């Protein structure tokens, strides 16, 4: 988390890839030995519809400079329509992020099918450069607000500096 002033800025990007399309595409990029920026760290979910907006907020709070969500193309979802859910949530989330002063380029939703290894390479490289140009994400409010001692680790406290309450 600490920023070393002696090192040039390297963006940190957290990616949420669905198991069936985009994660498989990332595997294909690997099998095809397509080199791309090491800045993107992939977390595998079964479906892009599983991406809770709080994952994005949490990633940004924990130090990510950008978040990439990858799902199947419309109509191709392994679970029929999870990617549409992801899209709806994403559009809403983007409005909130804009309201919080976070640039659109930092949070991106991409449809990448299992056969599009080259697209994983392209999107990862492109996004890394865009975020690099934007510079580190600086959230102006305190990074962590202590939870009330009695409260369980309710999701609302994951990113209080960004939004009061997250609703999907």
């Amino acid at each position, binding site marked *: 988390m600490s920023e070393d002033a002696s090192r040039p800025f390297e963006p940190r990007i957290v990616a949420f890839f669905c198991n069936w399309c985009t994660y498989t595409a990332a595997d294909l990029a690997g099998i095809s030995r397509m080199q791309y920026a090491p800045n993107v760290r992939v977390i595998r979910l079964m479906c892009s519809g599983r991406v809770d907006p709080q994952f994005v907020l949490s*990633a940004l709070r924990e130090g990510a400079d950008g978040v990439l969500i990858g799902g199947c193309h419309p109509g191709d979802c392994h*679970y*029929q329509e999870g990617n549409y859910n992801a899209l709806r949530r994403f559009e809403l989330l983007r409005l909130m992020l804009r309201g919080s002063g976070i640039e659109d380029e930092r949070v991106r939703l991409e449809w990448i099918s299992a056969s599009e290894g080259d697209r994983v390479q392209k999107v990862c490289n492109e996004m890394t450069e865009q975020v690099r140009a934007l510079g580190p994400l600086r959230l102006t409010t305190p990074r962590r607000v202590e939870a009330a001692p009695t409260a369980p680790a309710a999701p609302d406290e994951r990113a209080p500096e960004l939004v009061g309450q997250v609703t999907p």
Partner: protein
Amino acid sequence: MLEPEMDPTSQPVSTNGGPKVGVYVCHCGLNIAGKVDVQAVVGFASTLPNVTVARDYKFMCSDPGQDLIEQDLRAGLVNRVVVASCSPLMHEATFRRATAKGGTSPYHFQMASIREHVSWVTADGDDATQKANALVAAAVRRVALHEFLEPRQASVRPDVMVVGAGIAGIHAALTLADAGKHVYLVERETTIGGHMAKFDKTFPTLDCSACILTPKMSQVRSHPNITLWTYSDVVAVEGFTGDFKVRVRHRPRYVREDLCTGCLECIEQCIHKQGKFEDEWNEGLGKRKPIYIPFPQATPAVVVVDPETCIWFKTGKCPRTCIEACERDAFDFEQTETFDEVNVGAIILATGFKTFDAARIPAYGYGYYPNVYTSLEVERLLNAAGPTGGDAILRDGTKPKTVGIIHCVGSRDERNNAYCSKVCCMYSLKLAHLVKERTGADVYNFYIDMRTPGKGYEEFYDRIMKEGVHMVRGRVAEVTDQARSPQEEGRLVIRAEDTLMGSVRRIPVDMVVLAVGMEPQPDAQDVRRLFNISCGGEGFFTERHPKLAPVSTFTDGVFLAGACQGPKDIPDTVAQAGAAAAEALAMVDRGYVMLEANTAWIDEATCSGCKTCVGLCPFSAIAFDEERKKASVNEVVCKGCGICVGACPSGAAQQHLFTDAQIFAEIEGVLEHV
């Protein structure tokens, strides 16, 4: 995919005192170790919280590698396992099995993909090591939160559906039926047989195609365990592994299949005295009547009425001499589409291929010069049951004296299909032999490289060379009728570079044969969606693993056979169909499958009763108790997408193996140490 099962004789590892994580970093030979500093990753892992053991090994997936995990678990050194190696899509099942053998839940395991996602895609070694560290840190944090879960079990229906009845579907269906399984074989054409039924001979043995195929076709027809549905297609697939509900549409033939005996008297008596309409089976080289049978050995031997061309359907005015001719009263002009719905445990897709549309390369003049043919057309010309009775004659009835065969049409070409269609070299040699045999013509083959790997294939190539077929190495630039010399006058000229002679040649011929490549069926994308599988970039269906699971798909219970998975010849197709049948048989015969434990559940205490999840579930797996105002997930129906979990406003919906806490831990992990 076989899920791990716990060894019932083993004692679960004690988890007293919290998680003890073992991290195992795989070298994968040099695949990982050549880029990632494996020792550094091990060193880093050993500093992480909860990590009690950190090791590296050349090949974690090997027996000794798996033994490391098992031994550490049994010795009580660890109770959670992280393997940093290849993609979980590759070896997650392997390591879960090893974890289970160590005496704990197979799901006390997490994988960090440091090969596909790191060593293979990262240019710089230090960057790669850093990224590997981050992924290991994430897995370590996450696995500490993994619950003790057991794999779910679901029963499998005994019947199997095979879609497509070319040689692949036929062979798969017969194999399964012979094993005592009931097979629904669905074919959208009016007859089974597929492309193979159109060929005259097969390479390299020059077996007569019909002689080896038609006995199998009639076996399909008479097999008590096969329900054959021709002129039918699958319109809907529901359900999941082991229990698919498939809806099949039967198109009307206007002739009752159970009554027609295939005497063909009706065709004889049709008001059209001659065939008048393009005969699809003969690639348009022949004519058929509105009532027809594609070829004499068609299976089932049932005629079909084409409403597009039948006078009765078009005008309502026809004496319908066909009805009079039928002694069995098999005609039913009122027939409409009918539907069947069946439940099957497994599905084999054998939907085949289409040939490349030669008109897409205008320089070769297909569709413009009448004497430019595709290879499939020439197959029909050479076939004794074809439009010319097996004579290789041109459209004007003359025999060609010189024939040019152009290889790689649409294949190995960045502008069309980059891939090699695999079969064209061999069938071009076969066509060269047959054309020469039937016409005595001089035959030229224009090739890029000759590709003849296969049993007896190179020997076949040698044989054809000895028969005096000319071989010109070079891609053909164009086919033209612009003569430059008297000998070119009135003929087609093939202009090609001869890379062995180092010159451009013009070779006048009477007939051009375009060796068109194989392409996915035009509706492959629709079929893919229907069966919930994926296609590669070129459009063929994607197998689960190119080497280790070549007939499986990412949808458990759906298997692939034949050219729908990629270009292949008949021997390979039959071998693959047998493999698909064996895989399907292994599944339905066992009677149950193990399912991922990643289902959703709802914490009643926090459920606010908002019903958001109920409407979102694509599988209607969530029920709502109106009295108590609580939602609940039916675990048997839940497929584990987590859509409801992502949407639940109160955090009451959670998903096994993907809980919010686990994913937050993973997020923190990938970011913390970089």
